[in-house]
């Protein structure tokens, strides 16, 4: 590691309406290091990195590159200074090939593409850093892990030396995460600086050289990974409040259990854009959490849509609370006591342009509408939302601001509170802790367990195997629209599930 930092950030301050996102943050980044930026949601990690990438402009503060003061006004500027960023939601064009996507990003894109030379450069770099992808494959055919490789390749070909990755492990399978860390190691060897944002402690300890913990918009501390412990990091992230999670599994009272959801041989129409379900059989009983493991994109979204009544099934039958619900409308299913916590709240269930209060009212209009709909009982909307937030231990600054002004974690909190306010009997939780910081994730998990103990049924879909194993009473594995394995957490290992998730065991099974 060089003795002088490649990049120094000094006194970076950035405020948004009502929030001080970064408060005089100092940060040094050296070449040849993997630097983890750790912190709970809303701690200002993403904001800080988006300032470095020129996506936001700081209100005050200085950025130096090799000791020279630089001004980064746009991502274009950032790329001139060889800074590159991989966002949480990749920015690839699905219809184009890998090589075309990479070419679009290059600043020296010629009028006529020299594909041979481009493919050769892609080949060289991907081999050197273990980032193999087929340059001619269209991006829509790639898995999430492969897409991420393309994003990294893009930056490398565009000659970036500082790579910023925003929650890169969010939707990767365990062995893909290991692969990514291997890539980090190779890049570090060649003098690249890697900054990655995360709130998973284990990853930080597994692959970072130095760790910066952010809390409330400030740099709480920067320390070498060798000196960090899980406990020490948690206390840095949360101040004194160290939280312990205890999910004792309780034997569910089987005899009294009611079937809440029964899917019988459900198949959906073939769909080019998504994965269709194939003969899915699934039961959720009252008082249990059924975990669905799988890499996202293997039919989770379709499963949710079928249960919610958004997508009709081409074959099979669906029963809710003992009644045939195959042809029920979404409204009827929601009203019957089904809550839905989605993977992407802002895209799937929330209204970015409407206020928090209006978002709350929209889930249960029949409850809040007065005079047949002529007016809305805002008082009761507010008190229900307040009450539910309080039960979850969440706070939201104002109910009258549009949802889009809330941070990702806060949006998820509002949606959780909104869904739980209805005291649902069946909870469809799709990646309920994705994007939540450690503390909020624990409250969300506690909530699911508490609902289970109170007799609700939970269908928990997650990619976090740790979460699935600690919460679920039963596990099923979804791969390419089929349920390829079932088990109870005590009798199946994480590795077995990991292989089922990625289809690695499929061949063995069909042969044997």
């Amino acid at each position, binding site marked *: 590691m060089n003795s002088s930092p490649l990049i120094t950030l000094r006194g970076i301050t950035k405020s948004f309406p009502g929030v001080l996102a970064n408060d005089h943050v100092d940060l040094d980044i050296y070449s040849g290091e993997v630097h983890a930026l750790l912190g709970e949601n809303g701690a200002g990690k993403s904001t800080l990195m988006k300032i470095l990438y020129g996506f936001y402009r700081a209100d005050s503060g200085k950025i130096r590159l090799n000791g020279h003061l630089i001004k980064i006004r746009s991502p274009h500027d950032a790329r001139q200074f060889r800074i590159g960023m991989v966002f949480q939601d990749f920015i690839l064009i699905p219809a184009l090939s890998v090589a075309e996507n990479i070419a679009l990003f290059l600043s020296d894109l010629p009028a006529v593409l020299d594909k041979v030379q481009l493919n050769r450069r892609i080949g060289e770099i991907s081999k050197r850093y273990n980032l193999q992808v087929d340059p001619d494959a269209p991006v829509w055919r790639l898995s999430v892990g492969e897409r991420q490789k393309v994003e990294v390749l893009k930056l490398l070909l565009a000659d970036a030396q500082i790579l910023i990755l925003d929650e890169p492990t969010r939707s990767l399978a365990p062995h893909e995460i290991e692969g990514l860390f291997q890539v980090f190691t190779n890049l570090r060897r060649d003098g690249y600086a890697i900054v990655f944002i995360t709130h998973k402690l284990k990853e930080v300890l597994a692959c970072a050289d130095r760790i910066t913990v952010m809390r409330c918009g400030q740099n709480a501390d920067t320390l070498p990974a060798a000196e960090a412990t899980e406990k020490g990091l948690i206390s840095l992230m949360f101040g004194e409040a160290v939280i312990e999670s205890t999910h004792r599994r309780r034997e569910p009272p089987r005899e009294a259990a009611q079937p809440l959801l029964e899917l019988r041989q459900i198949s959906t129409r073939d769909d080019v854009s998504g994965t269709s379900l194939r003969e899915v059989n699934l039961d959720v009983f009252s008082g249990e959490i059924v975990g669905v493991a799988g890499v996202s994109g293997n039919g989770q979204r379709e499963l949710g849509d079928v249960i*919610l009544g*958004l997508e009709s099934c081409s074959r099979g039958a669906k029963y809710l609370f003992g009644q045939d619900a195959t042809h029920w*409308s*979404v*409204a*009827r*299913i*929601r*009203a019957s006591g089904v809550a*839905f916590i*989605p993977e992407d709240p802002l*895209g*799937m*269930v*929330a*209204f*970015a*342009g*409407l206020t928090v209060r*209006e978002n709350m*009212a*929209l*889930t249960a*209009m029949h409850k*809040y*509408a007065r005079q047949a*709909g*002529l*007016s*809305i009982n805002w008082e009761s909307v507010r008190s229900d939302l307040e009450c539910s937030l309080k039960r979850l231990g969440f706070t939201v600054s104002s109910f009258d601001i549009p949802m889009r002004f809330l941070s990702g974690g806060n949006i998820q909190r509002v949606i959780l509170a909104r869904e739980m306010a209805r005291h649902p009997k069946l909870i469809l939780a799709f990646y309920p802790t994705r994007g939540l910081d450690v503390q909020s994730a624990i409250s969300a998990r506690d909530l699911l367990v508490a609902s289970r103990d109170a007799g609700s049924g939970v269908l928990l879909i997650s990619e976090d195997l740790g979460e699935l194993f600690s919460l679920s009473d039963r596990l099923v594995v979804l791969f390419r629209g089929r349920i390829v394995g079932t088990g109870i957490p005590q009798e199946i290992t994480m590795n077995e599930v990991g292989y089922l998730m990625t289809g690695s065991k499929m061949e063995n099974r069909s042969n044997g």
Partner: protein
Amino acid sequence: MPGVARFVGLLALAFFVFAIVLVIFGKNPTKAYTDIFLSTLGNTYGFSEILVKMIPLILTAIAVALPSRIWLINVGGEGQLHIGALFATWGALNFTNLPAWILLPLIFMLGFLGGGLWALISGILRAKGWASETISTLLLNYVAILLVNFFVFGPWKDPESANYPQTAEFVNAATLPAFGNSRVHLGLVFAITALIVYYFVLSRTRWGLEMRAIGNNPEAAQRNGIPIAGYIILLMFIGGGIAGLAGMSEVSAIQGRLRPGLSPGYGFTGFLISWMAGGNPLGILASAFLLAIITSGGDILQMSHGLPGSVVNILMALILFVVLARRG
């Protein structure tokens, strides 16, 4: 507020470009504009005529603005207006013996029903995913106008009016009352009421909230159990109905009978107004006022400047560009 300033600036630009057009025609643009504004706003009669024109403009603008809250593009105000007029005329010609207090509400409802059913066709096509409402409403305009022509040239032609293609004159009981000696009629009350109800429904009611939700994120709306297809059909029906009221009030209060060319493109101007206002009720009122002045301006340019009346269409087209520029 900077948005308003920019909008006014862009409007000024449209007027400036139109001034150049007038110069090319060899006219003095300052004088032309002065004439237009003096003759419309300078005396009571001129102003009352502006109000008369604003009635169908406001109604057809709401017919566009209401479905546009959920991103439906209703280009069919003109056709819905014609069918509304057609239905109202049927009532007025067939129930001549009824007293006004029954006949007027009847033709009011018929006008609404006509426009509503006409738009409903497009609504159903869209809700089923069969055809874009933009295309179908646009094409149905021509069908509607030809349908009106069919009746006035054929079965409903008044045998007493020589060979003019027009129906018999409405009985008094089928004529919307006017205010004082002016031509300003009860339709103004309908238009203002419709505007107030439009505002109230959108901002206060359950339906308004659900409509804004659909407009904001249709996918999320669906997951929240909001019946999107139902809203598409309903909003097209109500929007079309309101345009039908414009047609009803034109035949009943202004023309006194059904004849071809009953609307100088009110439905299209209403579309322009709705987009200028971005669906905002006060914006609709202000834009309708401005466009009423411009429409009247055509007559003035024709009478005292020797220009074809349709020259103001150039100005309206320029304003449309301005509107699009503001959105872009």
